């Protein structure tokens, strides 16, 4: 069973995504900031990461950059989540090596679709 890591500092958003992923048949681990996100990845490599950009401490971009710098996780599928609807951020995320980019508030169906597609591509 594929494992999805959800990273967001808003507990309610984490709960909703966790529920959606479980419903779609994935294992879920959660993290509320950048540090713990990196720790979760180190503990047991997830198959996909849903990563919020504005996190307390290390931002989502930093987490993305560090993961991509590590050869183990260079091809780990990562979807960025953001409440900022700006083009610049999307471009920055893609340039740093994100696989996709989802703007809050998102459609639950679209989110689940994207996760499934990326996991299928990766395997």
């Amino acid at each position, binding site marked *: 069973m594929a494992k999805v890591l959800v990273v967001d*500092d*808003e507990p309610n958003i984490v709960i*909703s995504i966790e*529920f*959606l992923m479980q419903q779609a048949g994935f294992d879920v681990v959660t993290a509320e900031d950048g540090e713990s996100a990196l720790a979760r990845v180190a503990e047991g490599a997830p198959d996909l990461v849903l990563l919020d950009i504005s996190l307390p401490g290390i931002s989502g971009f930093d987490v993305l950059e560090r993961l991509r710098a590590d050869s183990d996780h260079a091809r780990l599928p990562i979807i960025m989540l953001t*409440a900022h609807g*700006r083009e610049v951020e999307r471009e920055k995320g893609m340039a740093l090596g994100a696989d996709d980019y989802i703007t*809050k508030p998102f459609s639950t169906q679209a989110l689940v679709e994207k996760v499934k597609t990326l996991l299928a591509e990766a395997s």
Partner: protein
Amino acid sequence: MAVLGIAFGYLGLLFVIAAWGDRRAEQGRSLIGSPTVYALSIAVYCTAWTFYGSVGRAASSGPSFLLIYLGPTLAMLMAPLLIRKMVRIASAQRITSIADFISARYGKSSSLGALVALIALIGITPYIALQLKAITLSHAVLVNYPQAADMRLVDESFWHDKSFWVALVLAVFIILFGTRHLDASERHEGMVAAIAFESLVKLVAFMAVGVFTVFVLFNGPGDLFARVAATPELAGALSLEAVPGGAVGWMGTLVLAFLAFLTLPRQFQVLVVENVDERHLKRASWLFPLYLLAINIFVIPIAMAGMLLGDISGNPDSFVLTLPLSAGLDGLPLLVFIGGLSAATSMVIVETIALSTMVSNQLVMPLLLRSRRLQLGSRGELAGWLLGIRRVAILLILLLGYLYHALIGDSYSLVTIGLVSFTAAAQFAPALLIGMYWRGANRKGASLGLIAGFLIWAWTLLLPGFAQSGWLDPGFLDQGPWGIAWLRPYAMLGLEGWDIYTHSLLWSLVANVGLLVGISLFSRQSPLEQTQAALFTEAMHPGLMETSLWQGQTTRGELRLLLDRYLGANATARVFSRPDASEDDLPAPPALISRAEQALAGALGSASARVLINSVVRGEALDLDAILSILDTTSETLEVNRRLEQKSNELARASEELRSANERLRELDRLKDEFVAMVSHELRTPLTSIRAFAEILHDSQDLPEEKRRHFLDVVVHESQRLSRLIEEILDLARLESGRLTLNPQRLDLVILARHSLDAVHRLQENRGVDLEVDISLDTAWVVGDPDRLEQVIINLVDNAGKFTDDDDPRVLVRLERHKDHFRLAVEDNGPGIAEGERERVFEKFHQIKHSGSQARGRPKGSGLGLPISRGIVAHLGGRLWVEDAPHLGGACLVMEMPEAPAAEPEET
């Protein structure tokens, strides 16, 4: 002989200093380029008359000797106004002496220049005689003590007279000293350096005697003056009664010293001609008076001491020497002798150089040029002529001084001779000073005024001096000439009871000024006079500096030939920027002609330079109309420039304002963008949860009841958060645009605070926060909007609750009076807020990073609460800030509101 050896050694040292000064000047590293040296050189004013005579004068005439120094103090205070203008004129016209100055002012008149030179020669000779007398006398006192100085001159032949040899030695020295340069110019830097040095020597010597007298002969000034006070004969010695002429004599001498300081040839030389930088005047204007004060401070003690000690002191004029001699000292009397020598030689050197320049430039050269005897064959020969004339003049002036000394000198004390010369020099003042400020003063008036003033001076001071020394029948002093009583020299027109100097000064100046003004009013000026008058009176006008005043025509070649012949190759090279003769056929530009005339004037005086330039230049110098139009246009141009500058300043200011306004707008724009982005981020966050859960609830029909309820709770909660956020954003927008509606009213903060705390008490308790309240006041009346203040208080408590210590969360609310304010402080026991962060918590959307709070399930703030609270408090006239919590150790937010004015009667 040892004394003579030291004296010659001292003169040799002066010569070395002068040579060094000249060398430095040639290398362009002037030794005298300092205001202090300038001030010291002005101290050539203090001659042997000061050095020996002040004490004598203090002994005989009480405090009147001070007037000789208070007058110059007044004159030096005016230096930045008056002397600056003289310096400006002198450097523009290359003035060589006061005779040259007056001659140039009145149309470069050679006859007026000659007149001034003659008066100076006659008037100053006694003064030079005085210095010779001082040197010989002091030497005699030094050598003969304790016998009285033997000064019988008339009986001996002149080669036995020491004064004669002193005069001769000085003449040779000055010739070596002042006319070493073949390149004759008006400045003598080496001389000025030596004079400044001499000023130091005489000051040190005099102070040394003073200190010796007061602290060695007596036990300090207290002892000395106590003994003076105990001596009845000395009781009136320091009062005004001792001053000749009383209050009138006082004022007369003050005016006399003031005028003479400006007009004595040697003072004019050092003040004006030798000035290298007019900025030096500022320092000198107080430093020189300070020098005068210092050299006079011991005069009265020495005079009193000499009189107390009686016979052993001898003549008061010699007290400075006899006091240390009477104590049996060797070194100090020698130092005093050198000090007196330096005072005398400095005066003789500068005076003789100034006078010899006048004699050569104002008396001899014009005659030679006019008679056309001066046929100069080869180039540069004139400089030789000039130096020759000056050397002969120096010799003659000193011999004249000796003659005066030998024939008449004995009849006057040192004190009185000086004032005779002062009065003669003061005759130059009207022509000089009035000429600098009144354009209408003309040559005829100046000449007649000078002649009249000089004649009255001679009649009232010079001839009586001759009479007293037995060269004239003294009968005319008492009865008047041929028995005409109103012509008595000391009581002209029956004016009796004045001291002779004030009497002479009054009548000579009345005649002098009267004729100068009267005749000027009723006669015409020549065109050149008008031009020069305008140039002198308008000298401070900035437009004149660069203007060339020649319109005439000549070729460069002719001009070069003229300068070459009269000044030599070096001076010519300085005037012509190009050394080669290739352009000699081209016409000379006006600026070059002006430079050439100035160069000639610097060597020959303005009148002669004028004659020479006229011999090669066809055409005229600018006439009065042209000069006036220059003055007017330049003043117009200046005005236009000033306005333009003002305009461009205004423009610059306006564009600066525009730029900063633009920057402010950009900044505001950026802040607005940031704000919108923040708002959108903050709104999207709850919206995301709402949408996600709503979709989940919609899509998943078979959710367990418990989950369904949880999800619905989240939706409701997040919706509330959303609407609260919207409310806050609106509040903030209203606050910032100033449209927040407040209903201020008198309210009791005690009641309001308790009420607000009741509202949040339960919530905080639920979170486990221990809320403590400490309100000891009964009432706290403020003016505020109760709803809004409640909002603030709740927000503060809520906020504090979020930052409390994790294990033992505590919040303390205190309300207390502080002067005429009330302070509501909300403390927590959390980590506190760093100093640098304290203002930032009031920024919009600023959120303090605190890990672990989410874990405890506390709601996250929007980051708008504090900015809104501060806005509300500020609108109500209060303040809101962060400080250290005094009781709980965390952060403390303090809200301060001013106390409401006393309640109106109907309200209570």
